């Protein structure tokens, strides 16, 4: 187990390192540079280059860059808030994004599980058909279309919720974005749970448990659900990925001051330091989540651990 964990952690660390290096080269490729201003004299340019360490050799620059990224020194913003450190720009926005993301994920997965179990127990009933259709529609329609519909009908037409994020009442303003983002994980979980649960409930050990006279609820939760949850963990990676992409657009739609809307704003205003930093943070979050899922899966299912990785 320890060996498996170390291997996974090592892999994740190498991946993060590679990503920083890739991002470094991407930064070089970005169109336009703060230093090719024609009004700068040759001397001024040299002074600037020395100040930002651009006169050093490439490997040295990479080393400095990696060190800076890992210690949280992401440089300064070019356009959005000039010369303001990116790290402090993020500090205020990060918690909002994380809070809405977690709300949506938890609500989505819990409701999805309930829907999935109920529809599996009423296999081929009306409720099951309804859930299947909901799951199909919910996992196909992108979250930004859902967000736009919610915004238009619930916020604009009915006026139940604020049109834009109101930092005075963070909970009320976060309901609509949470709903919009929760639809997709909910649909995915419901679909997966339903299919898995039908298979599990048809298996022989469930029949045995039932013939032994166990209570129905006990059989469903202890024997059925437990075995359904294990494969569900593997679907959480893609689910969180979809949530990340969705949250970027949803933040833009609901004008939430989170890191997703900052990412869009930074791309639109060519603020490359922020773009690269957020790219790094998104990747690091994603790698971290995948790492946790892999390790969790290794703990639960010894076969994965022995074969040394999933699939």
């Amino acid at each position, binding site marked *: 187990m320890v060996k498996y964990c170390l291997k996974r952690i090592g892999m994740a660390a190498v991946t993060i390192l590679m990503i920083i290096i890739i991002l470094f080269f991407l930064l070089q490729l970005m169109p336009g540079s703060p230093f090719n201003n024609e009004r700068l004299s040759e001397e001024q340019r040299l002074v600037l280059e020395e100040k930002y360490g651009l006169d050093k050799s490439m490997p040295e620059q990479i080393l400095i860059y990696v060190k800076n990224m890992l210690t949280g020194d992401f440089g300064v913003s070019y356009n959005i808030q000039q010369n303001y450190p990116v790290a402090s720009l993020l500090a205020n926005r990060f918690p909002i994004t994380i809070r809405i993301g977690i709300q949506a994920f938890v609500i989505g997965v819990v409701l999805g599980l309930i829907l999935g179990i109920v529809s599996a127990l009423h296999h081929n009933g009306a409720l099951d058909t309804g859930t299947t259709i909901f799951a199909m529609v919910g996992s196909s329609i992108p979250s930004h279309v859902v967000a736009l519909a919610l915004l*238009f009908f619930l916020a604009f037409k009915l006026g139940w919720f604020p049109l834009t994020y109101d930092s005075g009442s963070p909970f009320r303003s976060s309901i609509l974005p949470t709903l919009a983002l929760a639809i997709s994980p909910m649909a995915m979980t419901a679909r997966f749970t339903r299919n898995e649960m039908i298979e599990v409930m048809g298996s022989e050990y469930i029949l045995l448990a039932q013939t032994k006279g166990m209570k129905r609820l006990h059989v469903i939760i202890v024997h059925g659900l437990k075995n359904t949850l294990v494969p569900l963990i593997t679907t959480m990676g893609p689910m969180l990925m979809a949530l990340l992409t969705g949250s970027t657009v949803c933040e833009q739609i609901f004008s939430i001051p989170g890191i997703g809307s900052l*990412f869009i704003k930074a*791309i639109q205003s060519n603020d490359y330091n922020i773009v690269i930093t957020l*790219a790094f943070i998104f*990747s690091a979050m994603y790698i971290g989540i995948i790492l946790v899922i892999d390790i969790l899966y290794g703990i639960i299912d010894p076969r994965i651990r022995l074969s040394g990785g999933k699939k």
Partner: protein
Amino acid sequence: MVDHTRYSFAGNNGIYKEDSFSSIPSWKETLIIFCKNKGAVIGLFFVLILVILAIWGPTMNEYTYDYMQVDRQNLPPRIPGLEKLGIFDGTMNGVNMYEVKGCTEEYYWFGTDTLGRDLFTRFCQGTRISLIVAVVSAFLDLIIGVTYGLISGYYGGKVDFVMQRIIEIINGIPSLVVVSLLVVIMKPGLASIIVAMAISGWIGMSRLVRANTLRLKESEHIMASMTLGTKTAVILFREIFPNLLSSVIVMAMMSVPGAIFMESFLSFVGLGIPAPQASLGSLISDGYNHMLMYPYQLAIPAVFFGILMISLNLVGDGLRDALDPKQKQA
């Protein structure tokens, strides 16, 4: 020893009967399974309608997608025939905008946008661009993924190890990040969007192909070819690949809605198809900017976008069940 006198030969009277089944070609069987799936057929119907609109839609009326007529701004939808029923009659808040603007003889089926462009033509043009982006990037995914997966799976050993580590690193970067950074670098445009999506999208395909290649290369007919000294490229593409075709088609079909979604995401971020071209994503994004004043500008592309996504997923599911029942949905 068996005492043969105790047994007599039973013969063939009535015990053994040769059953002959009429042979149905496999594509026909696939078609039959596909047609039994109601959702998939409905999905296919809508996809076909949208494809037809994408191909012939822009020529169905006299307007072009980029012709701006300043005095025809923000006209609501008006469709001949339906207007008598009180819907799509060109009224907004009870006022017939066509009369106000003095163009009662004109019919803009989906209305016009803030620059006075015909939204129906733009919608068809946008569907066309979105479909091109999705289909071309799915095709590129297929080429890269299949080649990579075949090589990685077939050679195995060190080659496979290195190739899989590369995949793990690429897979560690969220596609949101890869695609948006690449488009920033290459400047937004049809080609750069397609290339960016192809670069980030082939991992799943290559994993599928690799897993199947690992299994197939142990089978007798591949072993026989190897022993006979068949060229590796021939083994890979003529002997292994045909066996994977059905799963590869399903996988490619499944990646189409994802690509359409990614394109619409890019449009929303401002990295989409540059104006005056349109895509479904950019129409939704434009509509969003005016949704409070002119909701129809958002509603029409958004509803069709939703229908297209659902239909494509239904068709993908139907194809999977028909072609590749073993592949479970993730």
